[in-house]
């Protein structure tokens, strides 16, 4: 029994291997296209995941609005203003940040070198009231109201910037749709090319297949080498793509972090593992499905 299984496996594997190299050009084309599809898939998933995290961070940041106070504002007026805001039902908390505290925060920003900070001379940063709201949709109204107060600095009055999040969400959506369309097109192409590879292999082996049928080989015995060839093609493309994405993800994130210092990009190894597994599975699927289509029409006499 074991010998029989070994015989089958050995026969299928050696035929598949021969098939792959016999029409190497088409086979390699199939492998490369699977590789490209999976690279696109992996990059898209990781990219969208990063944007998603950026959006989440920005959203939590966005429920806070800093109202900058003019340097001339007396502390008592500032405290009255704070109390006034705290009575507002839309507001959940208000924190007073002095000029010194603002400077301290500024110093701690990771991307700033100490020289830049020293070169500022006297502290140019305003004191502020950091208002946290229950619902970020109320921010626009609060922003409008506080701008009317004489206590508020005029340049700028607040840090309210409604469009940033919307822009990121839009970017994620456009990138997602474009990537999806690209991946669907490449998927169809790769299945087609693998199918072509298998049909070429079947054509090259037509004599052997004829003999196999005459002497009483089962359909599956005839099919296995070709299915295996598809799995090999898809699997090889997948392994190459997994290696590149697996080793390239961390350097890519680090690069982005150093270029876009204010955007919170993260390295997420758990999500990476999921993506790599998905890529491997999808590569195998492309191979199996392509070769199934190649085998189905052509081995049914």
């Amino acid at each position: 029994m074991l010998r029989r299984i070994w015989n089958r496996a050995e026969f299928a594997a050696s035929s598949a291997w021969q098939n792959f190299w016999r029409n190497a050009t088409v086979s390699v084309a199939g492998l490369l296209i699977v590789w490209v599809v999976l690279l696109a898939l992996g990059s898209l998933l990781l990219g969208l995941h990063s944007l998603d995290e950026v959006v989440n961070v920005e959203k939590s940041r966005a429920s806070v609005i800093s109202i900058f106070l003019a340097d001339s504002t007396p502390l008592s007026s500032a405290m009255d203003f704070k109390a006034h805001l705290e009575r507002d039902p839309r507001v959940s908390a208000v924190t007073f940040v002095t000029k010194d505290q603002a400077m301290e925060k500024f110093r701690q920003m990771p991307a700033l070198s100490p020289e830049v900070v020293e070169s500022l001379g006297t502290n140019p940063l305003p004191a502020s009231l950091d208002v946290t709201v229950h619902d970020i949709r109320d921010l626009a109204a609060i922003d409008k109201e506080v701008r009317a107060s004489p206590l508020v600095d005029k340049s700028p009055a607040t840090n309210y910037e409604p469009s940033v999040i919307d822009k990121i969400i839009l970017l994620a959506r456009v990138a997602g749709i474009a990537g999806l369309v690209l991946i669907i097109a490449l998927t169809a192409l790769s299945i087609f090319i693998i199918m072509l590879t298998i049909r070429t292999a079947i054509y090259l082996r037509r004599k052997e297949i004829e003999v196999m049928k005459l002497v009483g080989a089962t359909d599956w015995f005839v099919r296995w080498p070709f299915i295996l060839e598809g799995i090999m093609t898809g699997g090889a493309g997948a392994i190459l793509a997994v290696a590149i994405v697996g080793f390239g993800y961390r350097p890519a994130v680090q690069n982005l972090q150093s270029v876009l210092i204010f955007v919170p990009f993260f390295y997420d190894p758990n999500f990476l593992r999921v993506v790599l597994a998905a890529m491997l599975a999808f590569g195998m699927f492309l191979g199996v499905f392509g070769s199934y289509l190649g085998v189905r029409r052509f081995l049914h006499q």
Partner: protein
Amino acid sequence: MVSTMVSDATPLITFQNVSKTYPNGTEALREVSLDVPRQDFVFLVGPSGAGKSTLVRLLIREERATTGKIFVDGQELGRLKRRQLPHLRRKIGIVFQDFKLLPNLTVFQNVGFAVRVTDGELRHLKPKVEEVLSIVGLDGKEKKFPDELSGGEQQRVAIARALVHDPKIFLADEPTGNLDPATSWEILQLLLQINARGTTVLMATHNREIVDVMRRRVIAIESGRIARDEDAGGYHAQANLESR
């Protein structure tokens, strides 16, 4: 007919009013009925296009009968499921005019191929291949490739391959079509020997000399109909022979 009822008395092959019309409309066989008992030796003759190869293809169910029933060893071929075909084909050894050997395999590998691809008992592969090669008289040529052999030797390899499953039926579709008269006789001797060992042999042929000398059962087909079915027959009908 149920297979448990199959006895030596029931014919190994039965055609009941079998017609075959190809999808393009060609009527290759019309209302063919015949019985072939076990261990029979039958020549299938008739002009080109008469339907001999079609009959052979129906027997291994490479084609299905359009109407009528065909029984092989008690099984009705029309009822066989696709996954049962390998078992039918292992009961039938078949050779053709063009040998159908695989050029990149040696003699030994060509014959062993039939065992390997049918999940045969690998422990017995080597002794079995040696046995059938010695039946066809090719001992010592195991390592040769087909293009190193004469036509007659290549046909012997094909016959050896057809014998590895100990078939009940041996089909030969113009096995001597590519061979010279002397070699044709050698191949025929081999088929007679296979028949003598208990295998039913059906040979489609245009070789008049062999048919006339052998005086075996002859089924003549013309335009898809059985024109003649006689024991100890000749290539042409008796009247023709006498008028010569």
